[in-house]
């Protein structure tokens, strides 16, 4: 038997209330590993034409073979489904302890279909899943929901929940867990809401649960030690020393701003004069109160913030770089307390902060053009906070913004105002000043995203090797490598930040010794490539082609400013080379590639 796995999937039909169990077929472990890869395979097999908010859509809650083990940074859980925001397949991962507890409760995945007649939550414990009445929880925010269920089920409990936004099927609603960690992108929370599923409770005590045995125990422990050594020694990840550990992801704010690559005021500019005020350095200095951790992570990049008094009184995790940018530079805001409050709102309502911030910035530009039903001025934090609430509850203008920046811009009459690709808002790196990430946004299978292929690591931080951010040469291959590697690590499922200090050699060794499957670094990359192509094929079957692999018009026609002055994206040059490397024809997976990767 293959080591590591729990060898147990639950199939839950919320329409009928039935729960059945089965092991993962061995050939699927070998081809797709777990987490994102297996989830995508299950969503693919469910058929591409399903309405994302219908009972027929499949929502997979997945962990990977290393989840909950001693492998560092292995506390990741993936929600994989068809996105109501983009119409593509999507997977969105969150940290904390939920994923580990799901593994300790005896599961590799929980696959949910159907729609409950009334609100329900699920309890996952000791190899079983039960469905419980959630009438008293419906309408509560994420925090109150988590608190109520943790009080009921005791200390060895992790809870993931949707908030009012998910209940109302806001298209970018998130699944959240008890430590303000979000499965934020793609609207997975709306899918939960469409099924009347309010929460999932995982009850498991690690000390009482026998973990799956590594196939090669000594070698596995050695592989874990090697990886941990790399993390601890890594200049970027070293606990209490590396920038990520000390300041969190928002350590990037000053770097991107200095490089003239921080999209500002909805991308009109690429530098924010007050950028330092919203940087990780400033948040640490002024509002940070603690540094929480995820399962098996020595880096502790999360930073808890507290505004102790005043109208923005709030306490929340964690002002990520993307959030600080979306509520900050993009909307011309540098009030850290107001930003913290809006983050707190999003965490409790269950909203993706990136999509929310980009939608607000779009609304500010639209307001200038007289296209909005009410005035939304740049930097008006009172108005922003009101709109965050209205979006979650789908009230007033919020009932337009709730569809996401792209759809809302279309409804307001000017789709080019939205900084989105395939219907999903872009993150915080300007594709004019950093060429490769633009190709990444354009070709991401889940809409604009930095986490499909993080070329920033190379183009800015210089890892694993440095490339010039201003050039297009070599970026297609760089991106493909990142995309395939991340598809593999998302399927293990480990944190992306592990890749700052480890590579395919280390990851393959961990999986090989844990599972006993003969996975070389080359095979790991092949598995990643297979997953990436299956996602693309699914999207192709939904009508997505090369015409969707593009960027917001602004980045081709309006040059960047400040230290990237005059630059525009040269996507076309990179895209041609990328398709050739992928073996795709105008964004469509070729028959030859499908056969090569054993997808048909």
């Amino acid at each position, binding site marked *: 038997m293959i080591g590591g796995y729990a060898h147990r999937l639950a199939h839950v039909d919320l329409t009928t209330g039935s729960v059945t169990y089965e092991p993962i077929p061995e050939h699927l472990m070998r081809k797709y590993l777990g987490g994102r890869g297996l989830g995508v395979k299950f969503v693919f097999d469910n058929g591409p034409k399903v309405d994302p908010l219908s009972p027929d859509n499949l929502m997979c809650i997945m962990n990977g073979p290393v989840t909950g083990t001693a492998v560092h940074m292995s506390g990741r859980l993936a929600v994989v489904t068809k996105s109501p925001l983009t119409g593509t397949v999507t997977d969105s991962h969150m940290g904390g302890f939920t994923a580990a507890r799901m593994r300790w409760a005896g599961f590799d995945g929980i696959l949910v279909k159907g729609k409950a007649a009334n609100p329900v939550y699920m309890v996952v414990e000791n190899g079983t899943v039960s469905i419980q009445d959630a009438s008293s929880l419906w309408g509560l925010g994420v925090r109150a929901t988590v608190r109520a269920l943790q009080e009921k089920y005791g200390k060895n409990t992790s809870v993931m929940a949707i908030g009012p936004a998910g209940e109302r099927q806001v298209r970018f609603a998130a699944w959240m867990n008890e430590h303000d960690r979000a499965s934020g992108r793609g609207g997975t929370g709306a899918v939960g809401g469409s099924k009347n599923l309010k929460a999932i409770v995982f009850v498991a005590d690690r000390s009482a649960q026998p973990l799956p045995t590594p196939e090669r125990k000594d070698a596995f422990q050695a592989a874990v030690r090697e990886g941990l050594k790399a993390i601890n020694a890594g*200049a*970027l990840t070293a606990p209490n*020393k*590396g*920038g*990520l550990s*000390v*300041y*969190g*992801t*928002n*350590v*990037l704010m*000053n*770097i991107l701003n*200095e*490089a*003239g690559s921080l999209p500002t005021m909805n991308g009109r500019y690429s530098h924010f004069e007050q950028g330092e005020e919203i*940087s*990780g*350095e400033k948040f640490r200095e002024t509002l940070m109160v603690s540094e929480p951790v995820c399962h098996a992570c020595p880096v502790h*990049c999360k930073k808890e913030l507290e505004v102790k008094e005043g109208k923005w009184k709030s306490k929340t995790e964690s002002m*990520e*770089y993307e959030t600080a940018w979306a509520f900050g530079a993009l909307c011309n805001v540098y009030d850290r307390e107001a930003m913290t409050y809006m983050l707190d709102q999003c965490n409790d309502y269950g909203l993706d902060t990136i999509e929310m911030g980009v939608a607000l910035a779009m609304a500010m530009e639209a307001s200038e053009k007289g296209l909005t039903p009410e005035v939304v001025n740049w930097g008006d934090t009172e108005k922003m906070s009101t709109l965050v609430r209205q979006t979650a509850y789908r009230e007033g203008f919020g009932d337009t913004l709730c569809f996401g920046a792209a759809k809302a811009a279309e409804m307001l009459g000017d789709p080019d105002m939205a900084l989105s690709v395939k219907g999903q808002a872009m993150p915080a790196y300007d594709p004019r000043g950093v060429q490769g990430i633009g190709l990444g946004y354009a070709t991401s299978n889940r809409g604009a995203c*930095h*986490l499909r292929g*993080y070329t*920033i*690591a190379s183009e*800015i*931080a*210089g*890892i694993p090797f*440095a490339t*010039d*951010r*201003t050039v297009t040469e070599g970026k297609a291959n760089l991106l493909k490598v990142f995309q395939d590697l991340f598809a593999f690590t998302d399927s293990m499922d480990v944190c*992306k*930040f592990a890749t*700052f200090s480890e590579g395919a050699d280390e990851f393959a060794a961990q999986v090989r010794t844990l599972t006993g499957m003969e996975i070389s670094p080359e095979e790991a990359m092949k598995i990643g490539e297979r997953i990436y192509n299956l996602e693309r094929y699914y999207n192709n079957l939904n009508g997505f082609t090369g015409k969707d692999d593009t960027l917001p018009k602004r980045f081709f026609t309006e040059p960047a400013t*400040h*230290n*990237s002055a005059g630059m525009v994206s040269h996507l076309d040059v990179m895209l041609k080379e990328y398709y050739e490397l992928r073996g795709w024809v105008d964004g469509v997976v070729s028959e030859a590639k499908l056969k090569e990767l054993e997808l048909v």
Partner: protein
Amino acid sequence: MLVKLFGTLRMIVPGGRVEVEAAPTVADALSATFAQHPALRNEVVHPDRMELLPHVNVMVNGRLVRDLQGLQTPVRESDTIAVFPPSAGG
């Protein structure tokens, strides 16, 4: 000229701003910075030679010097140098 310091380097130089005399190259400007704040040196360059430590990034007007002429990149008095200790996120 202005040398800006970020991240953990601000634990050595609170505020992260150092003014140095005009210097012909980035290396010279950094040397002048180290002269004012000696504790910076070991956080930025090798102890025995003027070579950036791994993943330390230096920009001149937003361009990484690794993409220019490294520490020998010429600078003018009006240029801004930015120094970042190893940092990544996402």
